[in-house]
């Protein structure tokens, strides 16, 4: 129980640190975002805007009231952020929370599906390769895995969009779903979502599974040579039980930390993929914000991506204890 609490506390701390850092980035950098926003406000409003009006405008956009003392600014900023008020987007003129909030489910949909596909396919393929070690199947899969592992997701995405999207016109080249459909839980809409999501998901999953397969193969081969496996065979346990409980479980364990890092990689990769497919997810808006120097949108997008990732990693970390009971023991090691 204390393990869970500690883990949750740490997640909260992470979010807190990231939001504080975003305050630091916006507020404290000389010549940074605030100066830019001020000059932008002066340009738009002309010379008849008074200083206080400009400050009020910046305060609405960034939740930072520039004329207050620093600690008050920080306090107000944090309170607003924790209430889900990420300021106002300068580019879209809407609250950042509204833009990002509507985009986050789509990004999670893409990344979670891609990660799940890559992991399950990769792990099963890797286990098969280990059992058939040295066969032609193993050699061919290792080769394919190596090449895929050396290909960035956006390269696959670019190839997909130019061949399947533009030239053969089999798949859509942008958007989340066909615009004429009614949003809701109906067949055509869900199909359209899958249809639009197919290429982004595939390009993320395709480059991921090679790496999983290769590491699963290596781990399985190592486990297959262990003494306890020999004992298990001598006990006359069924092949299935050995494969699932003895080999798979022990081979997957070392990959679990990798899975947590992969969550981050996939989220980061999604930023590029979403832009290639013009898929309005968080990453898409993040880049829109950057290109328009829309700092509230940019920071909001970044914070939301981080929070999504913190949640993902926390879940992965907490389920690790189920997979490996030893992890629950906590660390009561002597210090040197």
């Amino acid at each position: 129980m204390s393990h869970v609490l500690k883990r949750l506390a740490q997640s909260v701390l992470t979010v807190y640190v990231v939001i504080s850092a975003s305050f630091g980035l916006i507020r404290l950098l000389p010549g940074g975002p605030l100066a830019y926003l001020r000059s932008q406000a002066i340009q738009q409003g002309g010379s008849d805007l008074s200083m206080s009006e400009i400050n009020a405008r910046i305060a609405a956009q960034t939740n930072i009231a520039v004329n207050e003392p620093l600690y008050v600014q920080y306090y107000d900023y944090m309170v607003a952020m924790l209430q889900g008020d990420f300021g106002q987007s300068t580019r879209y003129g809407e609250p950042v929370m509204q833009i990002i909030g509507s985009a986050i489910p789509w990004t999670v949909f893409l990344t979670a599906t891609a990660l799940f596909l890559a992991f399950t396919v990769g792990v099963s393929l890797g286990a098969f390769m280990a059992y058939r070690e040295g066969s032609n199947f193993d050699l061919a899969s290792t080769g394919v895995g190596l090449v895929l592992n050396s290909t960035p997701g956006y390269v696959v995405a670019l190839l997909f969009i130019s061949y399947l999207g533009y030239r053969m016109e089999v798949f859509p080249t942008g958007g989340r779903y066909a615009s004429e459909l009614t949003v809701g839980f109906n067949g055509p809409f869900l199909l359209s979502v899958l249809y639009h999501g197919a290429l982004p998901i595939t390009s993320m999953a395709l480059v991921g599974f090679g790496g999983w397969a290769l590491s699963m193969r290596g781990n399985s081969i190592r486990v297959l040579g262990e003494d306890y496996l020999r004992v298990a065979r001598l006990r006359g346990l069924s092949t299935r039980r050995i494969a699932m409980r003895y080999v798979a479980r022990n081979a997957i364990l070392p990959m679990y930390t990798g899975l947590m890092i992969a969550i981050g990689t996939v989220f980061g990769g999604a930023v590029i993929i979403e832009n290639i497919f013009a898929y309005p997810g968080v990453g898409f808006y993040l880049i829109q914000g950057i290109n328009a120097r829309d700092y509230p949108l940019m920071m909001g997008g970044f914070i939301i991506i981080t929070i999504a990732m913190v949640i993902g990693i926390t879940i992965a970390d907490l389920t690790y204890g189920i997979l490996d009971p030893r992890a629950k023991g906590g660390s009561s090691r002597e210090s040197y």
Partner: protein
Amino acid sequence: MNRTDRDDCQSAPDRSQSDCERSENGSNRHSTDAPEDVASGGGDQPVGGYADAVADHPVGGYADAVADHPDGDYADAVADPNKFTDEERDPGRSAISGHAANGRVAADGGSSSVSEFQQMADVSMTDAERRRQWLDEKILAPARIVWDDWRARSGVLIVLFYLLMGTVGLMLVTKPSPNQGGYLVGALRTLEYPLGTTASGVSLLSQTVYATPSMLTMIASGAVFTVCLGTFFGTVAGYKGGTIDSVLMVVTDIMMTIPGLPLTIVLASALDIKGSPVVIGVLITINAWAGLARAIRSQVLTLRDAEYVEASRIMGMSTPTIISGDIIPNLMPYITMNFVQQARAVIFGSVGLYFLGVLPYNSVNWGVMMNAAVNRAGATSSPAAFHWLLVPMLTIIALALGLTLLAQGADRIFNPRVRARHAETVVDDEDGGTGGSGSNPTAPSPVTADDDEGGGI
């Protein structure tokens, strides 16, 4: 483990010993877990089997054995291992490193008053021999291993090719400039522009080649940054334990949870950075060290209570000495693999972000080329400009593939067992020892195919 099996294995020197292990349980196929293998197969030997003589002979017995030989005979005996038929294991060891004879002579009858720990060997290697052996162990043996494994070999060749491209290539290829050739000449159409030209007539070959130095600098700086920081945090946290571990791990976990590329994007736009490749390389991997630190820490946890680490600790070695002398050498394969993988991550990240146009740059690079191809010529939708996009993409994939193969090969280079088999000086000495002992009738086996397991990324 079967007792007689183990005795057989122990009586044979290093090389055949690993054969014993293999025939014994067939588990010796994965090479990353070298310490474990040795521990399980070789019984009570620490790494490398070096100390088997020590383990088997308590100091007293040692002295007896040596005392049989009169003084004058001793040097001869070392030179000719066959004389040692009754103390079979010793000569192989002494011949390997030249200092294993320390302390032995003192047992001869106490003619000297120096303690046996201070006694120097009366046979020593000349400087030239030492240099030759160093060269053989540190450079030639790895090179031979690399050459024996097709993956490592192709990896090295590919990376070497890119290094040459970034240095010599600059002299062979003309500098990229607008209107070098026709607009959007396709790839492989003309000899003058083998990779085609851009929409403004710049040769793609020139652009690709001239982008190489800055890309390589960026890759190296990012990988070095990550590996140094990750190794430092990981080893210190894992070895020290206690409060230091907790504090470092909280910091690490926080860093690990922040998504890398978005963080880079935000920092790049908020900080007013210039396009220096070194800075960009560090920025791309700004929090990648955290994942590495986590992984290294868990490796260190399995090492911190190993006998030889404990021995160093009892002897009062300082923590930095233990970490750098006992812990890090054991992690080198892992660290090297991660260095190469980080290098790959830097390529992927930097090219991706340059492609999106969110990083500043001084000169053209592969990502900027892709960005230009898509934004200026619509390369995704127009076949005429597609080669413009394809050239940088293939350049990246080839380099990344080379690095992946290299990572798999690095695993072998650092595996002491594979390495000993390839070092000629070591192998020769061992052959002598083996012949003398006569306890190992089987010929030393060549490197077997099942030993080159490189997975486990």
